[in-house]
C-alpha cells in the first residue's frame, strides 16, 4: 500500500482573453470605436438595438480577427454567428452576437519566451456589451444599487475572445502567456491591448489535481482580473484556497468567482446550478462568414514577423539561447533590430543584449550607430560598465555623440598601471582591513573597490579592480614580495 502525500497538487489553468479590436468603427455599424468619449455619444439605432435595426458585419474587424488567428497558428474555417440570449441592462438587444460552435479560428498555439507552448482552443468574434455603473448601495453591484447608469458607447465594439487550452501550470506562466499575447496583438495591429482601458480583459479557469494524474479537477472561473499582476495574485490565492479545501477533504465548487484586488481574495459570484441557459441559435440577421483563400493569403502576407520568430532570429545573431531572459525582454521592448544592428557593427552579442534589456527599457532608444559605438568603446575597455551605462542614459535623454559625451564626463578609462597603483595605495592605507580580507573576510573586497573608485573618481573598471585584488592576494599567499 502506498502512502498518498497530501502536499503535492498541480495547478491547471486555462485563460479566456477578451480583446477589443482596433477598428475605426464598431462591429455591426458605423459608430466610432473609441475609449473615453462622452457617454452615449457613439451610438446609433443598430448598436442601441432599436426595433427594426439590422447588423452589417465590419470587414476590417474580420480582417483583424483573421490576423489574430493566423498569428496564433490557428486553422481558419468557415464560421457562423450565433445569438447568446440573456437579459442585462448593458445588452441593447438582450442578446449578444457571438460565434459559438463554428468559430473563425480554431486549434492554435502560443509559444512563450521560456520555450513552453500553450494551446489555443479557439479565437472567435463577438460584440462587446455596454458598460454599467451601479450607483449607491450594493457595493457597485446591480443588486442593492439605487440606480444604474449605462453607457452604450462600448456596445458593439468588436471583440476577439481567445480561449486557451488548460495547459498553464503556474501563475508565472499565466502572466507570461498574457504578456506574450499582448505583444502579438500589438505587433499585428489587432488591438492596443490596454488592460487599464479594458481593451484586454482576462478570465481564468483554475483547478487542481494531484501531481502525476491526468484527469482535470473541478474548476473555478475567476473574473475581474484587471492587470497581469492581479492575474498572478488571484491565481496564487485561488491555488491556496482550493488546496485548503481539498486537503480538508472538501470539494471545489464549480462556480464563477470575483477577484477583489483590495482584499486580495476571490469570492463566489454564482455557481453552476444558477448558470444561465443562453439558448444559442444561429443569428438570422447575418450570413455565414467564410473568408476566401485569396483574402486569407492577403492577410497572411501582410502579417509582420511575430515575437517568437523575432526571438529565434535575435538568439541566432547574438549567440544567446532563445529562452534567455534578455532575448525575451529585448523583443518585448521592440529593441531587437537595434541589437542586431549593433552586433553587425561589431558589438558583442551578449553585451548588446544585456545593455539593451537593462538600460534601454524606458525612454527613447538611441540610434543604432550610437548604441553600437558605446558597446564598442566598452568592449575595448575605453569605458567601464558604469561609464557605458551613464553614456547610454545621456544618449537616451538628449542624444549626441558617445565619444563627445564620454569626453565631457571625463570618461577616459584609466590605464592599467594607474588602477594598479590605486589598488596598492588602498591596501597600504588600510592594513587592518587587508589582513582580515586575506584572512577570508571576502565581503571586504567591496571596501577596497570602493576606496579605489573614490581615488579614481569612478573611472576605474570595477571588474579590473576586483581582478587586481585577487592578484595581490594570490601574490601574498605565495610569499611573493610585492
Amino acid at each position, binding site marked *: 500500500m502506498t502512502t498518498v502525500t497530501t502536499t503535492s497538487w498541480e495547478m491547471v489553468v486555462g485563460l479566456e482573453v477578451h480583446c477589443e479590436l482596433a477598428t475605426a468603427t464598431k462591429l455591426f455599424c458605423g459608430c466610432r470605436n473609441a475609449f473615453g468619449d462622452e457617454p452615449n455619444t457613439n451610438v446609433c*439605432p443598430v448598436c*442601441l*438595438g*432599436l*426595433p*427594426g*435595426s*439590422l*447588423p*452589417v*458585419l465590419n470587414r476590417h474587424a474580420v480582417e483583424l480577427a483573421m490576423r489574430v488567428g493566423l498569428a496564433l497558428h490557428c486553422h481558419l474555417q468557415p464560421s457562423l454567428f450565433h*445569438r447568446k*440570449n440573456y*437579459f442585462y*441592462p448593458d445588452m*441593447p*438587444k*438582450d*442578446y449578444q452576437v457571438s460565434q459559438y460552435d463554428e468559430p473563425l479560428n480554431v486549434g492554435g498555439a502560443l509559444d512563450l519566451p521560456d520555450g513552453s507552448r500553450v494551446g489555443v482552443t479557439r479565437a472567435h468574434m463577438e460584440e462587446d456589451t455596454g458598460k454599467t455603473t451601479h450607483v449607491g448601495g450594493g457595493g457597485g453591484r*446591480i*443588486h442593492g444599487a439605487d440606480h*444604474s447608469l*449605462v453607457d452604450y458607447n462600448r456596445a458593439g465594439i468588436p471583440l476577439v475572445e481567445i480561449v486557451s487550452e488548460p495547459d498553464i501550470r503556474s501563475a508565472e506562466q499565466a502572466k507570461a502567456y498574457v504578456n506574450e499575447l499582448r505583444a502579438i496583438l500589438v505587433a499585428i495591429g489587432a488591438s492596443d491591448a490596454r488592460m487599464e482601458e479594458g481593451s484586454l480583459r482576462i478570465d481564468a479557469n483554475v483547478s487542481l489535481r494531484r501531481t502525476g494524474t491526468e484527469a482535470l479537477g473541478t474548476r473555478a472561473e475567476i473574473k475581474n482580473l484587471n492587470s497581469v499582476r492581479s492575474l498572478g495574485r488571484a491565481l496564487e490565492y485561488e491555488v491556496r484556497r482550493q488546496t485548503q479545501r481539498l486537503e480538508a477533504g472538501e470539494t471545489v465548487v464549480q462556480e464563477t468567482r470575483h477577484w477583489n484586488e483590495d482584499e486580495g481574495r476571490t469570492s463566489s459570484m454564482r455557481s453552476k446550478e444558477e448558470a444561465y*441557459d443562453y*439558448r*444559442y*441559435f444561429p443569428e*438570422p*440577421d*447575418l*450570413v455565414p462568414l467564410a473568408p476566401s483563400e485569396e483574402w486569407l493569403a492577403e492577410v497572411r502576407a501582410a502579417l509582420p514577423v511575430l515575437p517568437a520568430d523575432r526571438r529565434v532570429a535575435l538568439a541566432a545573431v547574438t549567440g544567446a539561447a532563445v529562452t534567455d531572459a534578455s532575448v525575451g525582454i529585448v523583443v518585448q521592448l521592440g529593441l531587437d533590430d537595434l541589437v542586431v544592428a549593433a552586433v553587425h557593427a561589431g558589438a558583442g552579442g551578449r553585451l548588446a543584449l544585456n545593455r539593451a534589456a537593462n538600460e534601454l527599457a524606458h525612454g527613447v532608444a538611441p540610434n543604432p550607430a550610437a548604441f553600437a559605438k558605446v558597446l564598442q568603446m566598452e568592449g575595448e575597455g575605453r569605458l567601464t560598465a558604469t561609464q557605458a551605462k551613464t553614456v547610454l542614459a545621456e544618449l537616451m535623454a538628449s542624444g549626441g555623440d558617445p565619444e563627445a559625451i564620454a569626453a565631457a564626463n571625463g570618461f577616459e578609462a584609466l590605464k592599467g598601471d594607474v588602477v594598479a597603483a590605486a589598488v596598492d595605495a588602498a591596501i597600504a592605507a588600510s592594513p587592518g582591513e587587508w589582513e582580515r580580507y586575506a584572512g577570508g573576510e571576502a565581503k571586504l573586497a567591496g571596501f577596497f573597490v570602493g576606496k579605489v573608485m573614490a581615488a579614481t573618481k569612478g573611472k576605474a573598471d570595477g571588474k579590473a579592480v576586483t581582478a587586481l585584488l585577487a592578484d595581490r592576494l594570490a601574490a601574498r599567499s605565495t610569499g611573493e614580495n610585492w
Partner: protein
Amino acid sequence: MTAAVEIARNVRAGSRSARDVVEEHLATIAGREAELHAFNLVLAEEALAEADEVDRRVAAGEDPGPLAGVPVALKDNLCTRGVPTTCSSLILEGWRPPYDATVVTRLREAGAVVVGKTNMDEFAMGSSTENSAFGPTRNPHDPSRVPGGSSGGSAAAVAAGFASLALGSDTGGSIRQPAALCGVVGVKPTYGLVSRYGLVAFASSLDQIGPFAGSVADAALALEVIAGHDRADSTSIPRPAPSLSAVLDDGVEGLRIGVVRELVDAVDPDVGARLSAAAAALEAAGAKVDEASVPAITFGLSAYYLLATAEASSNLARYDGVRYGLRVDGDDVGAMYGATRAAGFGAEVKRRIMLGTYALSAGYYDAYYGQAQRVRTLIIRDFDAAYASYDLLLAPTAPTTAFELGAKTADPLTMYLSDVCTIPSNLAGHPAVSVPYGRGDDGLPVGVQLLAPALGEATMFRAAAALERSLAL
C-alpha cells in the same frame, strides 16, 4: 378604388393634383374608418403636406417618381421617422423611431404619400388582427368578419379604398392570407428581395415586406419601387429590383403549372372550387396545368411554430423597459423586467415567447429547433424537386373565407391552421402572390396563390396577371 398606376400617370402628367388624390382618400377614410379601424394612426396633415410637395415638384417640371401622389398605408411595424411605430403593442408606448425603414424611404423617393400606419396583430403574431392591443380591424366586405392577419389593417385599407397601396409583412402568410380574405392582391417576395431594415422583427429568417394592391399591375409597380439591394440588410440579395410591369402582358402560353396536391384537401369546398376554376383559366390561357406534389410541406406548420417562435423569443427580448417604450417600475431590475413585459405584451405574444424560449432551451434545442430546421431543409428540397417539372405552383391561399370576429380566438391551434397554405413559402424563402379569384358560397372573397422558386417574381406576375384577366372576361 383608384389604381395606383393611373394616379401616378395623371399626377406626373399634371392632369390631376396629388392634393386632390389625397383629399379624396382622406374623405373615404373619414367615411368608414370608425367602423373598420384599419389604422392605428392617420397622418392627414402630413399626407397633405407631402402631396403639396409632389405637386410643387410637378409644377417645377420635375418628376416626383413612379408613385407620384399615390396614397400608401404602412403596417405599423415599419419604422417611420418621428412617427409612432407601435406594432399594435402597449410595450412600444411612446416610442418614435429616429429613422425611416428602407422601404419607406424608397416609397417617398418614388413620390408616394404615406396616409397612415395600419393596425395589425401584435408584433405580427396572428391571423385575424384580433391580437391588436388597440382592438380589431373589421373586414370591409362584412364588418362582422375579420380581415385576416397579421397585416389586416393594410389589407382592409386597400379593400376599403383608404389607400391605393399598402405595405405589410409576411412571416407565415401575413400578407397573402388577409389579401385573400379582403379580396385584394398580396405579394410575399423572395426572402432578401426587399430590405428588412426598419421592419420591426418577428422572425428574422422568415419576415419579408411586400405590397397590397387593388390589381396585379399596381402590386408590380409597388414591388419594383421597394425591391433591390440594400447594404443596411445583410440578407438583402445584391441584385437590382426585377422588371415586372413590363412582363404582365406576356401571358402563360407554355408555362408548366402544378396544383399542389397536399394543399387542395386542406381547404373548404367552395375555396377548392375557386382553385379549380383558376387552374382551368390558366389552362385555357395556354399553360400546361396538372397536379404536383410537395410532400414535406405537410410538416410546415409544425416546423414554423418552432422556428418563428424561437426567433421571436430572442427578437422580442429587447423590450425590457430599459431604453424605450413602456416601463413598469419594480423593486429591482428583474422585477422591472417582469412587470414591464407582463403589462406590455398581449397573451398571444407571451404564448409565442414561451414556446420559442422552450424550443431553444438546453436539452430541447435539438428535438425542437434543430428538428424544425431539418424539416425546413426537406421542404426546400421538395420544392426544388417540384420546380424541376413546373415553372410555378398553384395553391389556395387560405382554407376558408373571412370568418366571424371571435370565431377562433378561443383556440390558438385552429387560428394557426389559417396559415397552413402560406407558411411553406416562408420556410423556403420563395415568392408567392395571392390573387382574388371570385367569391365563396358566403359571398366573401376567395384568393388563390401562385408560388414560384426564388427570384421567380417575373414569371409569377405574368401568371397572376393572366388570372386577373381571366376574371374580367
